[in-house]
């Protein structure tokens, strides 16, 4: 399956911006189940310099510097991504149990385990708390398979939390999300990552896109025409497995990954410093995911 993604970010400023320095995370990375075939980023106004590189997490970072005075900034990223054709068939009941997984993580001196342990630690936007542990605990039983524990947690978040774009901002603390049981995909991903880490399981935050064409007989998936977020957890001897708490599913061939990180902070679509610009710039984001017929 091949997707074409057009991601447009537009800023309108109240006052002139004389120059700016930015870092964008808008290029889909390669993963075990996807390959980015092409990517083109166009900027308005024209940048003084641009630079693509692979960052600490293996994501594709795009840097640009604009030295022209402007009141509007438009970043258009168009990518084509090849997804592996088969959706992951995962038998949730097989594999290592939760208890064994904890023991494995503690005692196994293997490079992939050592690296995964980074993702148990707290991160800029996700601090451990008793509330998280308490919320997560019912899904985890020592003898139950780890995958089924995480699937259960994912389902509970889906069922018990209300999708509400009015509720949260990028700065909504996890405690508030947990208290009001509301949020958007980003909050649910943060929440699930926090729960997994509270239970000692390495978990990553995944940002990306989701194809929202309703399949015949299936409901339209939430998050249409937007960037999306879900999670990945480290399953000993299997590697990283992705779940989507906003849609109560495994991440499959409709989930196109942009970047992995500890949390949103590591994979912010656009961050930077601008000189000038006045107060409250207006931001518009539009995402368009469409299928390309395989040649």
């Amino acid at each position, binding site marked *: 399956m091949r997707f074409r993604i057009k991601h447009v*970010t537009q*800023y309108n400023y109240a006052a002139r911006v*004389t*120059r*700016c*320095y*930015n*870092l964008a995370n808008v290029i889909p990375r390669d993963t075990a189940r996807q390959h980015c075939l092409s990517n083109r980023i166009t900027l308005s106004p024209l940048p*003084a*310099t641009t*630079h693509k*590189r692979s*960052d*600490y*997490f293996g994501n594709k970072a795009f*840097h640009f*510097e604009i*030295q022209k005075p402007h009141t509007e900034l438009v970043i258009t990223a168009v990518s084509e991504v090849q997804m592996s054709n088969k959706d992951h068939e995962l038998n949730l009941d097989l594999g290592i149990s939760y208890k064994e997984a904890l023991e494995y993580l503690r005692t196994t*001196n293997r*490079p992939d385990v*050592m*690296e995964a*342990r*980074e993702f148990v*630690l*707290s991160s800029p936007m996700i601090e451990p708390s008793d509330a998280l542990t308490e919320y997560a605990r019912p899904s985890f039983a020592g003898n139950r398979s780890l995958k089924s524990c995480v699937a259960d947690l994912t389902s509970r978040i889906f069922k018990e939390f209300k999708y509400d*774009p009015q509720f949260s*901002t*990028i700065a909504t603390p996890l405690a508030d999300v947990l208290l009001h049981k509301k949020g*958007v*995909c*980003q909050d649910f991903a943060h929440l699930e990552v926090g729960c997994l880490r509270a239970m000692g399981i390495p978990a990553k935050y995944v*940002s990306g896109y989701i194809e929202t064409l309703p399949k015949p007989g299936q409901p339209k998936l939430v*998050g*249409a*025409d*937007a*960037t999306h*977020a879900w999670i990945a957890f480290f399953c000993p001897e299997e590697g990283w497995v992705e779940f989507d708490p906003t849609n109560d599913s495994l991440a499959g061939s409709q989930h196109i990954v942009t970047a992995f990180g500890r949390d*949103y902070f*590591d994979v*912010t*679509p*656009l*961050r*930077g*410093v*601008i*000189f*000038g*610009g006045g107060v409250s*710039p207006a*931001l*518009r*984001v*539009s*995402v368009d995911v469409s299928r390309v017929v395989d040649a």
Partner: protein
Amino acid sequence: MPAPVTSPEPAQAQAQSQTQVVPLQPLEYKSRSGLLDDACTADGRVKPEWEYVLGSLRDLGADVLQEREQKARRILRDDGATFNIYSGEGGPSSTWELDPVPYIIGSEDWARIEQGLLERSELFNLMLRDLYGPRTLVRHGLLPPEALFSHGGFLRACQGIQLPGEHELIMHAVDMVRRADGSMCVLSDRTQAPSGAGYVLENRTVMSRVFPSLYRDSHVHRIASFYQRLRLKLISLSPADEPPLIVLLTPGGHNETYFEHTYLASYLGFPLVQAGDLIVRNGFLWMKSMDGLKRVDVMLRRVDDTYCDPVELRSDSRLGVPGLLEVVRAGRVVVANPLGSGVLENPVLLKYLPQISKSLLGREPRLHSVKTYWCGDDEDLKFITANIRELIVKPAYRSTGITSVWGGDLSDTQITQLLATLHSKRYQYVAQVRLEKPHIPAFARGTLEPRPSLLRTFSVATDSSYKILPGGLTRIGVDTNSKVISMQSGCPSKDTWVTATEPERSSSVDSAPDSTRHSAETPLLSLPSRVVENLYWMGRYAERAEASLRLLRTVFVLLHGEEPITPTARKILLQTISDTTMTLPGFAAASKQVLADPDKELLRIIGDGSLAGSVKSTLNRMLSAADESKELLSTDTMRVINDLRDAMVALDLALASGLTSAPEEALDPLVTALTALSGLMHESMIRGIGWCFMELGKRIERALQIISTVRCLVTPVTDDVDQSTLLTALLVSMEVLITYRRRGRQRQGIELGLELVLLDNSNPRSLLFQLQQLQHHLAALPKAELKHGELAEEDRALLEAMTSLRLSRLPQLLDCDTPVREDMEQLLLRLESLLEEFNRIISDKHFDHRTDVQQQVTSFWSEQ
């Protein structure tokens, strides 16, 4: 000569210098039983390497040593050697403390320490390379992942950055103490932006001047080559082919070690810059200088890495340059120490150092580190919990604002709280055993007493290895029993002498590197525009302070003079003060009572630092501007600036009891110091662009002061008696009374006075003279090409001011039948606005005005 009444030194130092009449015993050093001593053996005999120095000091005697100490203090003060300056509004700056007894290390002993340090720096370099590269230490289990990944100094954005050459770690400082068995034990490593090497240089310079023969005969290993090595290493890091531009990045004048930044920058010949002096453009880093942008090739940073780039590191930082990290990644500028190097300051590394060293170097480190327990390790946490009262608890990440605590100092409740923290944030804390600090002799209270000591050593990378500074920075406790030694708590420092055991033996060590210096000239220094702007303001504030003081002095003399003055004249005089110092409303809105008893308001105008326009506030601004442009000021100038600081302290004391008799006397030292400053600027400053701007500032300010004073004193029409009083005030404050009297043999009156003050171009204090000087300096500034022979805006403003003044006719300006001389008032107001305009144009054209900076973050999802 202004006599410094008090010097701005810490109370403790004063107590030492104002020695109570102590019966002078011979200067013998005796170790105390039960205290670990580094100068004496366990049975109390002086160690051989100390014999020569202690013997020489004994021969000198306490009196002479006292005198040398005073001399050292004077030199430090004249050099402006400070630690933590400006604690708040013009607060006292703290003079660097140097104990006159050097710390002695024998050369054989030093050779062992040096070997250990060489190895340690190599090891830390390999660790740095690994942690931001393949991370095999973590992947292969030699360092627990949590120890690295939860450390605030591990900057993920710096992954993969590599410096040219063999070494990533350029500067490495190590704090250590000597143990009872004679070996050194490391307490901590400094790899972020190690401070102290500049102070070492200053200490050495002072010691070699104060004890020339003792220093010479002790055959002390030289340290200059260390700084040469540093300079050469930085040059070799440059990615450019042509001679590199190397800058030293400082957080600014409020940093506690700012003196060292200015000192090192001028010693190494690098421009000292702040973040605002730099800009990233088109993928390169540039310095904003008066003659445009200059490409920067190498940066020696004294700003912590997390603050260096708000785009990718701490977004709230104002000390960094947006976009810097990208320039670094592209290899177009090299930053030393590299961004991310703070990760090596993690004390958890000390716990794992032996096994890391075995893996990277094939052996355990020769130089031992203090025993360190990590709360992140189960066994260690148990041990810490059981022994917390015998341990020092430290945060793993130094910048968190949490300081170390000694468990023994805590109450039961505090211990419970601390343990709860250690258990909940396990990865963030370590505990260490407290090592007894060895005592060494220090001169205090007229005798030599043992003080606990700590040594900081310095390594710098060379092409193939490291060069260790022979000696280092020794710090001692404030008394024999002090437990904590830190510069922040005002501990004195010592020069550290690595000496050959036999003073006669000539030392050939270490002379080689200097001769290998090849032609590596840095390009001619160009100034960051910020420095120039500060010189301009220094000129303006100095002039403003001087003018205010002259006027105040004049008014005091007239108010308390032999001849009584009328209430009208009194009112005008006092209002002139409020008006020209810009402390309005002040006397302009004052009641009759206040005018009759003006002391309170006058005191405010002189000594209230929080009142903008007061003499004190103006002088404080002048001193801040001087600090920002320190690297351009000569030693003599720094000395005069110190005199000014003294005079300010003296004035505070003098005014504390109100305006007593002859208050004008109290202002004299300040006027003298300001005059000396202005003389020095004129006589000993290179006539470069910096001087030009300082002169511009001075001339603009003087012109504005003349205009304001004339306007206040002469535009009101008064009777003859008052007219004469006010004219005297004008002539005295403008320093032309004598000329007036001399010329007055032919003519008299206000017309002659005004001619002298406004139009006489042979009077260096006349308005016309100021305008001519402005034109002269303006001509020397760099200018953009203008078309069709058009005048630039600033030329235009100045020419109009000049012409208006020259075309004016004094009799016409003075003659009028209204209560105010309207024509004169109009002319002066016009001149004032033209000069303000001129000032604005100059600032806009030549100084850097930063626009508002803000963060750009997209929200994550789109609203539908």
